[in-house]
């Protein structure tokens, strides 16, 4: 296990380097960044001077080396549009994405597992069919459409939820961090929290739909498979009640593959956040990245992509390690 862990962690190095190269190329392959930076009235001399200043005339490998060195110092450059450091822009936005993703994850895990269990325990019942049809729809609907439909039903028609945004305008929140929900929860600002939750519901549901569906299907098939296995039969033969068999013996083992899916879904949710945040004007990294692309603000695009990829890589690492740890049947040489 220790060996595996070390090997697995070491493997991060080439992956992270590769990621940084890829991200670097997103910026480096632009035809001429100076035109965008200097605006349309730049003189040829100004362009040449800026190219020199940015080191765009150096060989690409030298440029990459410089980029990695800067990254190592935590310097992501400055946004071409707002001129503030990319790290500052991202720091202001990332907490929003984290809260949205965590909320969606929690929703997906709870609803997905519960629905999956019910479905498996009552195979071929109405509940089972409903769950499975819902799950099929869940994996087939585009997030952004689901988002639009939620908006048109709950915000436009019924008017029970706000259309978009994070918080009603002009509310004096007194919040100091960007982790609005966590902070409101811990400091007991209930009115603010309630407003935050109202804004969170639709984005979280839209983002969670796909993962919920997948987790439900996974839990169901995994449960069904485990139930057929010998040790479960033995447990039944011992005369244990069905409940004990299901929840004590079957569930524990059935959830092992589900854990992996959950981990992987975290990565998916980060990607899905790009679309969800755009639909709901959620001020996170996803909508930041989309806006940055629309503004050709490449340092900002690079920063967002790098951050999400790095987070994704570390989540995958964690998933692999957890998986190796909880599933004794797997041996990694």
């Amino acid at each position, binding site marked *: 296990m220790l060996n595996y862990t070390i090997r697995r962690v070491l493997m991060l190095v080439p992956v992270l380097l590769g990621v940084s190269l890829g991200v670097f190329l997103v910026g480096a*392959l*632009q035809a001429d960044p100076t035109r965008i930076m200097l605006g349309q009235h730049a003189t040829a001399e100004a362009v040449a001077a800026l190219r020199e200043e940015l080191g765009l005339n150096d060989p690409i490998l030298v440029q990459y080396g410089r980029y990695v060195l800067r990254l190592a110092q935590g310097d992501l450059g400055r946004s071409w549009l707002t001129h503030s450091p990319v790290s500052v822009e991202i720091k202001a936005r990332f907490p929003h994405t984290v809260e949205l993703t965590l909320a969606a994850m929690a929703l997906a895990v709870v609803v997905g597992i519960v629905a999956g269990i019910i479905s498996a325990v009552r195979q071929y019942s109405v509940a089972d069919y409903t769950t499975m049809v819902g799950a099929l729809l869940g994996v087939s609907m585009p997030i952004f459409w689901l988002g639009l439909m939620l908006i*048109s039903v709950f915000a436009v028609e019924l008017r029970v939820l706000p259309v978009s945004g994070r918080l009603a305008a002009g509310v004096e929140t007194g919040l100091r961090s960007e982790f609005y929900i966590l902070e409101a929860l811990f400091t007991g600002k209930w009115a603010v929290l309630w407003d935050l939750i109202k804004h969170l519901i639709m984005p979280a549901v839209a983002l969670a739909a796909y993962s919920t569906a997948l987790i439900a299907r996974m839990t169901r098939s995994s449960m069904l498979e485990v139930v057929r296995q010998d040790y479960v039969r033995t447990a039944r033969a011992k005369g244990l009640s069905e409940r004990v068999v299901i929840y004590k013996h079957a569930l524990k083992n059935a959830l092992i593959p589900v854990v992996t899916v959950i981990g*992987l879904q975290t990565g998916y949710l980060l*990607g899905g956040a790009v679309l969800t945040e755009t639909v709901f004007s959620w001020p996170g990294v996803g909508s930041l990245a989309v806006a940055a*692309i629309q503004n050709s603000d490449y340092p900002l695009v690079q920063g967002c992509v790098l951050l999400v*990829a790095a987070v994704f890589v570390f989540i995958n690492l964690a998933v692999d390690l957890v998986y190796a740890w909880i599933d004794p049947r797997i041996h990694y040489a």
Partner: protein
Amino acid sequence: MGARRRVPAGKPGGESEAVLAARDAGLTQKTTGGLESLRIVWRRLKRHRLALSGFVLFLVLVFLALFAPWIAPYPPNQTDFPRSLKPPCREHLMGTDEFGRDVLSRVIYGARMSLQVGVISVGIALVLGVFLGALSGYVGGWVDNIIMRLMDIMLAFPAILLAISIMAVLGPGLTNAMIAIGIVTVPQYARIVRGSILSIKEHEYVEAARAIGCSQGKIIFRHILPNIMAPIIVRTTLGTSEAILEAAALGFLGLGVQPPTAEWGAMLSRAQRYIYTAPYLATFPGLAITATVLGLNLFGDGLRDALDPRLKE
């Protein structure tokens, strides 16, 4: 979207979405009969009603796409300002958009775009992925190492984000969207093929072929590829549905086809402006995407079951 069947970085050949992926891999070893068993598969598939209905749904899409000019009641780009933003009625079953264009006709023509993106981007991914995977699995050694590390790196980005980044480099447009989606899904194919080849390579009949002096290429194309068709077919089916979803997402973000071409994702993106005044504009293109993806998913799941020899007849 595409992250569905992704495997964690840095686990060469490891299938992590345990059950589904294990089944994918499981297909390889046991269907050594290759395509001859197609009949059995078809027989199983015929009994799988959900899968069949999925297939039919998909055929409807193909039909719409192929015969769009004859089916669509109006030309998709015919503007008619005085008739703009009419809710669904007899002349316009899905209403009209802000230019007075018939939404139904645009949804029908949109099927062409989706199908085109689905087929071509999956084609790109298939060719590159099978080639890289085969090379990796068959040659092994440092070639394998390099290719697989490259795949790991690509898998380190959430799919949609990688696609967007590639679009940021290539610029918006349909062709670029197809390329981006194709590239993003290459690792999925490469891994399946590599894993399958590794497990087949040592089988007797491959050894035998090698012994009688068959060339490397011949061994790959004659003996190995036919035997890994099953997982690839399943992946291709599901991959097409993912590609269609991703294309719609790119269109929604304004990175896909350029106006005035009718494309479902772009239609949805524009419908946002009319969510209060003409909500039907957002309804129909979304339904079309969902139906298409649903059809392919049902069919793909059915195929997987049909191709899985472990399931009882």
